[in-house]
């Protein structure tokens, strides 16, 4: 059926999903650290919204809770912690443009297409009215990974990691109307702990190499000093 025939709620859903995808593109090529964090927060917010819509539409009550969880974690807590980190490492002014942006963006687009192609068999499964979003969530995961590959700045890498988590969450919501509660809590807890540890590591890395450029973390290698 064509888009026009879909119920309004679902159309809204698709719009939001598109926006989420857009935010991760923004995240990918955002130069300023702070605005990257904001973009990440927006992504979280959008996903929370999607969750609420799915909850009302699909009538899965526990999704309200996970929507709340997402909002707390991804929109408030983690961005706030990142902000504090950035301030402590006085990186507010830090900007770092993406190298070869055109190439990277093309790669990201390719990933989107790839994930759509990949998601087809799943879309073929008539299950929920959110099925089309599977492709989007997969794309977000892959783009997050891509961002980690192309962004040498530690904080940005963490952002990429977190946006991968967003993608996963979106996938959970869109495909299966959320995971069992136990798992959701566990995942959320892990993410939180991970965020704390990332904070610790920012400081440790800063202490050891006076920078957050992970490219300079290259002592441990077989190629250079092991030439016998």
């Amino acid at each position, binding site marked *: 059926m064509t888009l026009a025939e879909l119920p309004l709620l679902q159309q809204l859903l698709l719009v939001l999903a598109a926006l989420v995808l857009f935010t991760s593109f923004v995240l990918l090529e955002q130069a300023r650290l702070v605005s990257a964090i904001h973009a990440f927060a927006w992504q979280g917010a959008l996903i929370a919204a999607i969750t609420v819509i799915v909850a009302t539409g699909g009538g899965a009550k526990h999704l309200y809770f996970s929507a709340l969880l997402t909002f707390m974690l991804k929109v408030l807590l983690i961005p706030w912690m990142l902000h504090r980190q950035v301030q402590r490492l006085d990186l507010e002014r830090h900007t770092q443009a993406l190298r070869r942006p055109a190439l990277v963006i093309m790669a990201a687009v390719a990933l989107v297409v790839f994930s759509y192609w990949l998601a087809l068999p*799943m879309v073929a499964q008539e299950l929920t009215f959110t099925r089309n979003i599977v492709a989007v969530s997969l794309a977000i995961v892959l783009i997050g990974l891509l961002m980690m590959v192309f962004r040498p700045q530690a904080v940005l890498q963490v952002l990429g990691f977190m946006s991968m988590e967003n993608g996963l969450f979106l996938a959970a919501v869109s495909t299966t109307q959320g*995971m069992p509660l136990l798992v959701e809590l566990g995942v959320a807890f892990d993410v939180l702990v*991970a965020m704390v540890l*990332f904070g*610790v*590591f920012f400081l440790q*890395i800063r202490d050891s190499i006076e920078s957050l450029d992970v490219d300079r973390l290259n*002592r441990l290698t*077989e190629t250079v000093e092991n030439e016998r």
Partner: protein
Amino acid sequence: MTAVLLTVFAPLAGALVLALLRSSYWAGWLNVAVAGLSLTASAWLARSVALDGEIAGLSFRVDAFNVYLVVLTAFVGLTTSIFSRPYMAHVRETQRTGAGGLRVYHAMYQAFMFTMLLALTTDNLGVLWVAVEGATLSTVLLVSLYRTPEAVEAAWKYFILCGVGIALALFGTVLTYFAALHVLDDPEAGLTWSVLYGHASDLEPAVMGIAFVFLLVGYGTKIGLVPMHQWLPDAHSEGPTPMSAVLSGLLLNVALYAVIRFKMLTDGSLAATTTPQLAGYMLMAFGMLSFLVAGLFLHRQRDVKRMFSYSSIEHMGLMTFAFGLGGPLATFGALLHMLVHSLTKSAIFVTVGHATHIAGTQDIDHIRGLIRTQPAVGWSLLIAVAAIAGFPPFGVFTSEFLLLTATMDAQPWFTIALLSGLAVAFAGLFRNLQPMVFGAAPEGQGPVTANMLPVMTHLALVLWLGLAIPPFLARWLDRATELIAGGHLL
């Protein structure tokens, strides 16, 4: 049931207490005590499993496959904790970390044990994922315990790579859940492995295939499969040695365990399609690749712990290959190999710990004449490496014998790769080992206080397994083989 709970949650309680306990002296002992408690509980658990097939409930499930891994985990946990008490004391004397560091160490040690045991015993794939992620989180601080630039770097790489990998694994889990929801009416049970295994044949093949790819890449990162292995040598070489021992001995096993569980589901779902063996082929490919690549890496090592971590990659590759090969013989061999490899490898790391204390460095070129300086350490290292290289009468030989012959049966041409891989790996190990143990000792190198009890126990067990496999263990392994490969040997 209580046995399960005791086994799993004793370490958790221990972790909490240790986190609060100030005296690092008592912490060391308490660490040992908790590990011992957990081991006794696991022994009890094993006994009850041996009596009445399997234990299930509270989304825990212990069957023949994981019970022996549970016992193994608890056992290695105990011996390593025994070793780590004097070791960490020595570390503290040499000012490489402070009291706080020791507190973190002990607490995280038990937390890690908890996650391992939880991952092994749980029946819920989601909890499994949480536990494995928890294992990363609990060990990553230990890798950076010494705060040297290398340590921090290693920890960061470990964290990022395993985090990404584990995220992918979560995606796979989600997809599995998605596939499950079609065939199951109760969504809550959608992640319960036993239920899924019951309906494995109904799961949508396309989805399960994609899911398995994500899971393989995800958990494969933790197994240390090439080309996702790069974190492993760094983490092993920079963390404190007891950590390396448990990482090599336990974490890799658990990750492999997870992959096997999912492989069983995937096989069931793909059985009807044109490529029923797909998962197996993937495992074989990754296993063989890791096996060969790691063997080559062994030749260019300066850091002794790095070298042995590569040897871990090699052996995990071998096991992965064998599980992919399938069939009772190969599976039995792989299970046995899991057992003997973790025993031997942890023994090796413990010995290496002593050796590094003797020489005061991890640099292979500066570890010399161990046999002259401290025969106990030198000989243990020599014997243990001979064992890991697959020389009888040690258990590794038995399992490799089974693997090779099984391969000869099923895929004769792979034996050529196996043969050359084993030879290359062996050469790599011994060409570095010999100067370390043999030869004259350098000036001013003296023996250290070493507790060789754990090593001796491990080697004795491996020797025993090489000479004769006790019947009860044989029955376990056989039932596990039946679970995985659907065939008997006995």
